[in-house]
């Protein structure tokens, strides 16, 4: 292109596909879809360079509704397809959409491997603590004792904490948001996109049909300020409707304190998302209601070379060092002879 024609300005509508959205009325997935569609035009990426890849589950239907390239694959394997796509096409912006079943149950292995490899993807895990699509069985994030059709006397499994697991796999970007806080959600997704590397975002999402109110205890608007805590880089960890409570570390143990009475902001833990050591991020990730406010926001954003760029570099280096491959020379490698 010669003249610098400005890119066409896209709007949210440009990212709405012509497919009828087929989630249950009231499902938390709608909000995530809406925020995702809203974010897209702001990324300043041509629409055709964006790809959404998902597994199977209600959540995994999202790609159908995005007017971008999309791949609704098979259960649990989205990270592998995304790895192949991004490694072979580093020019694309590749998003993985998964659920607590898709990503943590059948797809758990791929998830930890894509995270440790640090492939430059955004991975959004819709956590509704249930298998929605298959009509309500307990999932790896369901609380122990959960009664579902497949656990009529209560499930026995201890739940997985998705962010802890991601940090255990040494994920470079780990964040958490909730579907009902659209502002928080969209900015968290934007941060995930900006991060170069595997960005893992857990989104608490309500399945109003099979697990209604799973997060209400702490996400309900009335109690949210008191029962969640927004972690922001460089900021002391304060929460509460009155912003009068804070979090400090006692050794390695997080402690909720009331500000005042000699306790000031300077006693609080100041969030540093950039630490190479994931210890504090892990401590935060493990905080659960009612013992603690549930942390929301970017727990970790540590930069290191991505898998896809290392792979591309290796190819370029090989070419630089060894010269571009000569196929016929390669054919004739080693001992050869001529028959006339």
């Amino acid at each position, binding site marked *: 292109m010669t003249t610098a024609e400005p890119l066409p300005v896209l709007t949210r509508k440009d990212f709405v596909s012509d497919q009828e959205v087929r989630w249950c009325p009231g499902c938390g997935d709608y909000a995530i879809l809406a925020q995702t569609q809203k974010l897209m035009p702001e990324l300043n990426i041509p629409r055709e360079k964006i790809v959404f890849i998902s597994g199977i589950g209600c959540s995994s239907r999202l790609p159908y509704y995005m007017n971008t390239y999309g791949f609704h694959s098979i259960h649990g394997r989205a990270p592998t397809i995304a790895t*192949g796509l991004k*490694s072979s096409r580093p020019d694309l912006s590749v998003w993985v959409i998964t659920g607590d079943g898709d990503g943590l149950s059948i797809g758990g292995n791929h998830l930890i491997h894509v995270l440790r490899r640090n492939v430059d993807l955004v991975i959004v895990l819709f956590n509704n603590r249930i298998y929605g699509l298959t009509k309500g069985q307990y999932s790896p994030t369901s609380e122990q004792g959960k009664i579902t059709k497949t656990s009529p006397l209560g499930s026995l499994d201890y739940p997985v904490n998705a962010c802890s697991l991601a940090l255990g796999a040494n994920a470079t970007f780990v964040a958490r948001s909730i579907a009902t806080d659209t502002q928080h959600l969209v900015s968290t997704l934007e941060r995930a996109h900006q991060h170069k590397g595997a960005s893992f975002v857990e989104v608490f999402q309500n399945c109003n049909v099979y697990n209604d109110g799973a997060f209400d205890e702490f996400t309900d608007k009335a109690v949210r300020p008191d029962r969640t805590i927004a972690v922001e880089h460089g900021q002391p960890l304060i929460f509460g409707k009155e912003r009068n409570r804070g979090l400090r570390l006692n050794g390695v143990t997080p402690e909720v304190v009331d500000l005042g009475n000699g306790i000031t902001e300077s006693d609080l833990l100041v969030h540093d998302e950039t630490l190479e050591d994931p210890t504090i991020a892990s401590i935060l990730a493990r905080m659960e209601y009612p013992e603690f406010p549930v942390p929301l926001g970017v727990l970790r954003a540590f930069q290191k070379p991505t898998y896809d760029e290392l792979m591309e570099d290796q190819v370029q280096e090989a070419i630089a060092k060894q010269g571009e491959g000569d196929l016929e020379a390669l*054919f004739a490698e080693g001992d050869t*002879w001529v028959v006339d």
Partner: protein
Amino acid sequence: MTARSDDVRELERVTIRFAGDSGDGSQLAGQQFTNTAAIFGNDVSTMPDYPAEIRAPAGSLPGVSSFQVSFSSHEIYTPGDSPDTLVAMNPAALKTNLPDLPKGATIVANSDEFTEANLHKADYESNPLEDNSLAGYRVIPVPITSMNARALKNSGLSNTQIDRSKNMFALGLMFWLYERSLEPTLRWIETKFTKNPTVAEANATTLKAGFYFGETAELFPVHYRVPKANLAPGHYRNITGNEATALGFLAASKLSGRPLFYASYPITPATDILSELARFKRFGVKTLQAEDELAAIGAAIGAAFGGSLGLTGTSGPGLALKSEAIGLAVMTELPVVIISVQRSGPSTGMPTKNEQADLLQAMFGRNGESPVAIVAPATPSECFDMAIEAFRIALRHMVPTILLSDGYLGAGSEPWRIPSFDDLPKFEVKFATDPESFQPYARDEETLARPWAIPGTPGLEHRIGGLEKSDGAGTVSYTAENHEIMVHHRAEKVARIANDIPDLEVVGNPEGELLVLGWGSTYGAITSAVQRARADGLSVSAAHLRHMNPFPKNLGDVLSRFERVLIPEMNLGQLRMLIRARYLVDAVGLNRVTGRPLKIAEIVEKISGLVRRKVSVA
């Protein structure tokens, strides 16, 4: 340096097997012998045999490794049914290999190693070199260990290092016995040990020592010469099937102008392909060692979606793990290529042994009606052509394609006439680019292929996936009519590949009493056996399938021209089942599942049992 020319007997073909402990370097000796014979102008064919996946204690029976090479003055197709000469570096090597030797064969035994301890490890009660149990063989005991040690006593190497060179002594001896030049091996030693001249020197010294020992000792009354073969003119190299496969895929990348992306999880005997392709970074090849086979094919599918040549490779158990994802590739109609280097099953089976038992898995190992294209090379060098062919089919027909190689092809080697790039079939890749009336599941009139519309193309944004898609528009569809149409489209798309592949060729008369039909690595044995039977005047012809799905169009016609059909396979009759079902031909089988290649002799015997008439020379 050449051997003395007196007492030379000329032979048409010779088969040697080097056998010893895994640490004894039999593979290396065999490979050097192969190269030398090939460079001289013989036709050659080889078969390495690793006994097990893991290393066993030195001197033990499971620790034996061997390498067989057959070289000839005429075209040959197999590494030989049985060795004329066995080099046995220790008692265990003798014990495991003896069953394969015909009476009268020569055994060169490293007598130094026939110690009490080693005999015990090999379960020998007494020394076979002495107890007359080898009567009927020509046994030549040679104290290889000590002669090698003596040759190198001033080499400056440690005793362990010295001992490691004894394969070179044995190799030198064989070079003398079969009148072959030391030059290629000396050249190889020089390149290999550039950084370590002491070792290079030592290897050269003992190689020559072995050669001179042959010349000097009176052990062998005669030595042998196998004249050059009459090979097609050209530039040759020796190549294994796995190397050829890797080169073929690379060639496909250059021919199509699309980058190659190989994702794989290591598994015997397919790992070599990953190792080979990993060397080709400077060609823009990207390789990914995945966390498992599910991930590997997922990555290949992702790469194919993005417009690369998406490739994954494995062996039987890994192919099983890829089943579900192959179904996804069928549904999304992406041009992924899957290679399975087959091995003995079921389950983990015998990983280093051979079998052709993934054919039905490749055909049917998925839920639903899920057709894929399948091709199968017949020889190591044909792996090159079939790797190209797999991608040609996949790209032209937008269909996942399985390449069925096997361990015998993969590790076996033969001379390969090095092609010039211009001679290779170019195939154009057409990406969809025009948003006007674009439909992701539109159909090419001729092939029924859907368009390849890759991310990054403005205006073609669309969604694919594993749910049934509506014809044309490609949106999710659950209607009865559409599903029926799509199931038939997918089947018909694969069926139409038959319009695009060569007819099956019959070797021998185009009709007659018996057709021997084969596929894959049994080619050599079948071809040789049919040649032999025809030479004996039997009315038998051979045909070998390279396209397993769909079959060549003329297959039914070919079958109908013969009274009987024999299908030798290294399985319980997998191709046979397909042929019987499709053509209702009462094909009989010759089925061996021993982990070892079929023997020419057993095929000949089977043929003789089935054929009465003499061949009419056409």
